């Protein structure tokens, strides 16, 4: 196990499990992850779920837990650019990864195009499933695949919403993401390897 280096420590965050821990110290692991662009270095118990690490250790409560069974998609985040169910992922599995949550989307302070589309199309009601849907669509948007209606439907297929009936979600996703060819160069071109 690598000894974490001090310069990676986020000053605000508890580096160690707060007592009483969830397991014996022999089952603790040092992890280094980048969360929404900031380096985080922490010790986590082996059984700590990634979603609990994000929500309760880092205070990033925008990622929601809807089922803990991997079927509703509310906890979807990006790990190294790929949509992942954080309720079925252990925190230790994220070691060395780049993790992004809904809190990263409005980077400039303004809502991004995808977020705006959900507002404009009324693609949300209670808003509980919304972060997971936004992250699923962000994964699609940043991918190099052709984003046609089939791709949108497939990527939305893993997210449950109980309020909207999906019609406005589909409309919002189409408005924000639909593109026939590869994405314009000015946006996220660095991701198209």
């Amino acid at each position: 196990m690598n000894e974490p280096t001090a310069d990676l420590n986020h000053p605000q965050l508890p580096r160690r499990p707060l007592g009483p821990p969830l397991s014996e110290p022999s089952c603790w692991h040092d992890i280094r992850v980048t969360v929404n662009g900031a380096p985080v270095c922490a010790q986590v118990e082996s059984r700590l779920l990634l979603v609990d690490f994000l929500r309760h250790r880092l205070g990033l409560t925008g990622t929601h837990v809807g089922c803990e069974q991997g079927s509703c998609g509310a906890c979807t985040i990006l790990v190294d650019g790929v949509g992942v169910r954080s309720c079925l992922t252990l925190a230790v599995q994220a070691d060395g990864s780049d993790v992004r949550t809904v809190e990263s989307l409005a980077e400039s302070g303004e809502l991004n195009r995808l977020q705006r589309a959900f507002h404009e199309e009324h693609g949300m009601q209670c808003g509980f499933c919304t972060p997971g849907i936004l992250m699923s669509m962000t994964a699609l948007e940043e991918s190099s695949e052709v984003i046609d209606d089939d791709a949108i439907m497939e990527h939305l297929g893993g997210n449950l919403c109980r309020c909207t009936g999906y019609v406005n979600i589909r409309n919002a996703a189409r408005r924000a993401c639909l593109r026939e060819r590869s994405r314009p160069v000015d946006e996220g071109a660095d991701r198209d390897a």
Partner: protein
Amino acid sequence: MTPEEEGPAPFIGRSIPRVEDDRLLRGQGRFIDDLQIEGMLEVAFLRSPVAHARIHEVDLTAAAGLPGVVAVYNAAALVGRVEPLLNSEELRIPEGIRSTIDPVVRIQPMPLLASGEVNYVGQAIAMVVAESRYLAEDALEVIDVRYDELPAVIDPEAALEEGSPRVLLEAEDNIGIHLEHGTGDVDQALRSAAVIVEDTFASQRYVPSPMECRGIVAHRDPFSGRLTVWSNTQTPHRVRGHIASCLGLPADDVHVVAVDVGGGFGQKGILVVEELLIPLVAQDLGRPVRWTEDRQENLTAGSHAREQIHHITAAADESGRLLAVRDRFVVNLGARNMVGLVVPYNSLCHLIGPYRVPNVQIEATGALTNTMFTSPYRGAGRPEATFAMERIMDRLAAKLEMEPAELRARNVVTPQEMPYQTGLLDRRGLTQQYDSGDYPEMLDRAVKMIDLPRVRTEQQKARVDGRYVGVGFAMYLEATALGPFEGAKVSVLPSGRIRIHTGAPSQGQGHRTTFVQIAADALGVEMGEIELVAGDTATIPFGVGTIASRALVTAENAIHQAAVLVRQRILDSAAELMEVDPADLEIADNQVVVKGSPGSAMSLAELMRAIPMTQGGSGRDGLSEVSYFQPPNYATSSGLHAVVVEVQPATGRVEILDYVVVHEAGRIVNPQIADAQIVGGTAQGIGGALLEHMQYDEAGQPVTSTFMDYRLPTVDTVPDIRLAEVVCPSPTNALGVKGLGEGGAVGPPAALANAVEDALSPFGVVIHSCPLTPDRLWALLRAGRATER
């Protein structure tokens, strides 16, 4: 009232974008599980793994000794401290119903933790309080309980048979409810009828399944001594009352706050044992405590809904005019009767829906079974009744060889007959009266939108090609604006901004937008100057909540009333200070301005600062008014779903080709939000029609306890839905509004079942229940083919 003729366009009726979205899109919602209080403990429950048993020796010793465990509770720990749970508000029997119908209503209060007997899988037996949920769940593993299993009864009709094992040993039998109600003389009408059809139509068991499960946080603040409870409830004031009486506290010392709520649909509208236990633990330990339900708990031990079996008979003359309807139905109440008459009576008084039926006889029985208890879920008895009525209408049309739309046209109540009295008693025990509506127009619109003649032609052509297309209609009414009241407090703040308080919180309906639209119109100020706080009991003394399609009607009328008063107070106070006549003043840009001389103005902030210095100022609470609105009658909304499907006989797969909803809900405050409510409700109904089915095995084990088995609609289940609107403003309130939250969910099972049966009519298939899954349809097709030969 709204500003004068030349004033700005009113906000009511406009699709104002939602003000709540920004926060939620940034991941800055504050749902129950997002609250973080220093030192907070977490709770996990040990729940019964068997459907019916005597329980002995709930031994907590080992659990209490595990790391991080702070406290453990079983029923013995609560003896003499708390009473079993009763949803007292829902259990009241209105005087008119008691004196006229005299129903049997037996209530079985729910012990907070099971004592001596468990009677459904999921019933709470013990509670562990620990430093984290992980550690609390660890401790559940070592709690020792001995179960002596008893026979379990799952089927509601079997439960009513003589000699059936008792579902609950302490109950005298398995009957929770029994009542009969009607009008006219059904027997005589049946004797003179040209056509009589009878059949059995059942609605399956559903789980409301909001995306956020239940949750509650409680904390006694050492500074104020008050107990603060954050709950994702739809009815915070009711929760306050129950917690206070459970813990023996004055209601003023219990402060309940509904934070962001991730969908409710009725499941969060009734009190549950956890809502009493968590505050109790917080009082005991003096530390903040949280319980967050997990999905398996929600699917098995969160309230269920809908399960009803209707044996219905309809009689008509040779032209198809309805003469009589008789319905005998059984409601599966589950392990206990938790909400009294609410659902069965709602089914009863919505059964005949938009139709003129001179003779009606309805018998309702509520059966106890060893399953999770059932409670209102979006529609609350209406979808079940509509399924029975709209199915029998199509059976009647088939027997008469009449177009189902035409049969409906011959029987709907016309606008000229409004207000229309059915001859029955409504939920309040008063004469049931539909306030307004235009059912012939709705039918006409729907028939035109789906182009019925074209669909019929194509249906014939398709059959030649071996394709099976069908069309189905479902009409329903929705008595909205349940009383007894809702309140609003409208205040001008020191900054000159306006804040509204009401008891009806939002679970996604967008109250911060729609309620503010109404206030902005009444006050004559911009929406951006007004904010809404809903569901905080410290800010308004009384409230009911957001259930039963009532919030918009009751809360918005209360807001309107209070805002009108505040506007007048603003004008009067400013007139006194500015030494002018109030009639010469108007409110513009958050200022009080002398009409025609924009130079003489006083901002609301200046006005607020000046009021304490005025002569009358000491007798007034600034510029603030509280108003309560009591609806004088139900505002009757209505809807019509028309759907065209294609069914593949080889696989039983149903494809929706066209889905049209025509709705009528009075004056619409925000069309975009209203439409989305209709679509969202319709999607839930489609889920029930095609996928959702909460199932138990014969031993009472829930077998659909994950979202892999309890199948919610996904993005490709729900088609684009075409909407049309008919507007009949309600005469029951000043705004002319009606509720519409539940309506969408009422129509789909009936409409889709009618369409599928129509598509499969060459095979002689009759649909008696949903969901219309491929395997169930395939089995029906096989049976139909067999009888054909």
